[in-house]
């Protein structure tokens, strides 16, 4: 049905007139797509009728590369998938290799790993908050979150020399022990961070514009979320209390206390709240790790060359900042994995985007891409 010209705002909910359906291309070179995501949209006026994501612009064949290198040398490849959360990628990969060859990690290494993973979770969520807010139109949180993220990255740099592509774990343990004074600086940041999180929340949580843009937008019911395999804060935002750190504890997550936040409505605002609370819980975990940090070795006894048994296979998944990141590894008796498949959380979560943005406005699409928290390096691998 075609509306007469000159009356664009006359439909019943006061937004936009209906017109003929048309196709619209969104991305891949669009700053709000967080990389190189392309969407083919079918729009009616300002409403999205259907959308079709087109991915693969960043495909590098990481899974093929895994097959070419020994188990130890594959850790840096994992950094480059989700490049804003390298520590959790490392953790998932080394966890899978350890399960495959039967290595047991000493407690000090497990605790440092937990700390690094939680710091990484905070830094990933801070980056998400900054970009999500800037997509919706709030510029200030970007400056605030990057201020704290900088200190976090400094901590990583001090530990392993890199800020993003950390390569900070090895099958069997860790490459280095913590540097002198690291724990004190980490403890200081952890003492400051809750106050800083309050600052961000003051800007956004009760902000009328923020709520207008996020409440009720992109509702994902829990059954549909599970059906799509959505994990991480997106699943918890829909009200499913499921976290791999609690469900199938790895490293030392059964020895620390934390809570798993959930949302009620499954909308963009709930997912925001869940991620904000998760950061506070991560601070709690890091504080407990600092308190309990045991002494001892940081590397298990292991052969110089790791070899997986013939036709040994394992799947190991951990809770990354974006959802379940898992590795399926098959061994064939050589030092290289025969097959190494990644279960990337961004890839699977992105699959639910057409469901989220059905009937949404084009302007909300930007908020919805932000709320799925994708990193295209991991989607395309």
């Amino acid at each position: 049905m075609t509306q007469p010209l000159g009356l664009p705002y006359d439909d019943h909910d006061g937004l936009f007139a209906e017109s003929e359906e048309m196709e619209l291309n969104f991305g891949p070179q669009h700053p709000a797509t967080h990389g190189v995501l392309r969407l083919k949209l079918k729009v009616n006026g300002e409403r999205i009728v259907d959308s079709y994501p087109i991915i693969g612009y960043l495909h590098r064949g990481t899974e093929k590369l895994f097959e070419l290198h020994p188990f130890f040398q594959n850790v840096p490849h994992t950094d480059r998938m989700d490049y804003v959360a390298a520590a959790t990628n490392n953790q998932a990969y080394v966890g899978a290799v350890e399960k495959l060859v039967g290595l047991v990690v000493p407690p000090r290494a497990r605790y440092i790993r937990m700390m690094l993973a939680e710091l990484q979770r905070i830094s990933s969520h801070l980056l998400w908050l900054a970009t999500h807010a800037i997509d919706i139109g709030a510029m200030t949180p970007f400056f605030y979150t990057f201020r704290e993220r900088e200190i976090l990255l400094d901590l990583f740099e001090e530990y392993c020399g890199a800020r993003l592509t950390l390569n900070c774990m090895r099958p069997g343990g860790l490459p280095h022990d913590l540097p002198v004074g690291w724990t004190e600086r980490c403890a200081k940041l952890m003492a400051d961070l809750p106050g800083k999180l309050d600052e961000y929340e003051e800007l956004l949580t009760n902000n009328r514009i923020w709520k207008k843009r996020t409440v009720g937008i992109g509702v994902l019911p829990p059954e549909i979320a599970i059906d799509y395999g959505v994990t991480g804060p997106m699943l918890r935002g829909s009200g499913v209390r499921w976290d791999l750190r609690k469900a199938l504890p790895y490293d030392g997550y059964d020895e620390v206390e934390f809570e798993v936040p959930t949302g009620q409505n499954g909308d963009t605002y709930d997912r925001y709240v869940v991620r904000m609370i998760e950061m506070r819980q991560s601070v709690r975990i890091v504080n407990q790790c600092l308190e309990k940090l045991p002494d001892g070795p940081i590397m298990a006894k292991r052969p110089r060359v790791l070899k997986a048994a013939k036709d040994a296979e394992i799947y190991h998944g951990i809770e990354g900042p974006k959802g379940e990141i898992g590795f399926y590894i098959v061994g064939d008796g050589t030092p290289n994995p025969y097959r190494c498949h990644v279960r990337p959380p961004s890839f699977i979560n992105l699959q639910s985007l057409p469901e989220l943005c059905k009937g949404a406005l084009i302007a909300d699409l930007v908020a919805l891409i932000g709320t799925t928290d994708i990193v295209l390096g991991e989607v395309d691998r």
Partner: protein
Amino acid sequence: MSDEPVPEKPVKKHEPEDPNKPVWEKDPVAPGWQDGAEDPLAVALKEELGDAIESARSFAGDLTFLVRRDAIARVCAVLKEKHAFTYLVDLCGADYPKREPRFDVVYQLHRFSDQRRIRLRVMTGEATPVPTVCGVWRAANWPEREIWDMFGVRFEGHPDMTRILLWEGFNGFPLRKDFPVEGIDTGSAIYPEYYGEGAGPVAGSGTGWKPPKPPQEPS
């Protein structure tokens, strides 16, 4: 040469390991395959599905079922409806070129009630499509497309069986073991005026191949 006797090499005595040593200081013990046919889930599935389940083994605590190819959608539906495996964690392929049939499709399932994980495995060849499980879990849609894209395994009944990470017309399936790591020049996709459908020279190292000169226009 002197007649001095050669001193005997000291024999290295193998000392028994201290049993009180923490487990991370001992040599790693790799897990192995165990028979999983007695597992209650395997018994129940065998009863419900009969010969659709070919074997049940477990490795490091993960139960793995080998499922007959044409029954996979039915097996998945039963697992989801009756045994509450509502979450499809992962779906991926693997290539064993020396084996017949050469491909594996591996499904990882999760049950929320007791946090149980199992694995299903289907063997398939190049010419035999696997029934899709998109009707069981919507999560299977993109991973199945990825398997088609990377291995060339087709899924029967899939709503959108197109390439996902590579472009339509790409010549070859990169995660197959016989695909060169250096990649191939997919000439037909990039220069359709010079190469026919599916043709594309291999640009791997050491083949001595050079791109042909484009046809010259008569001056």
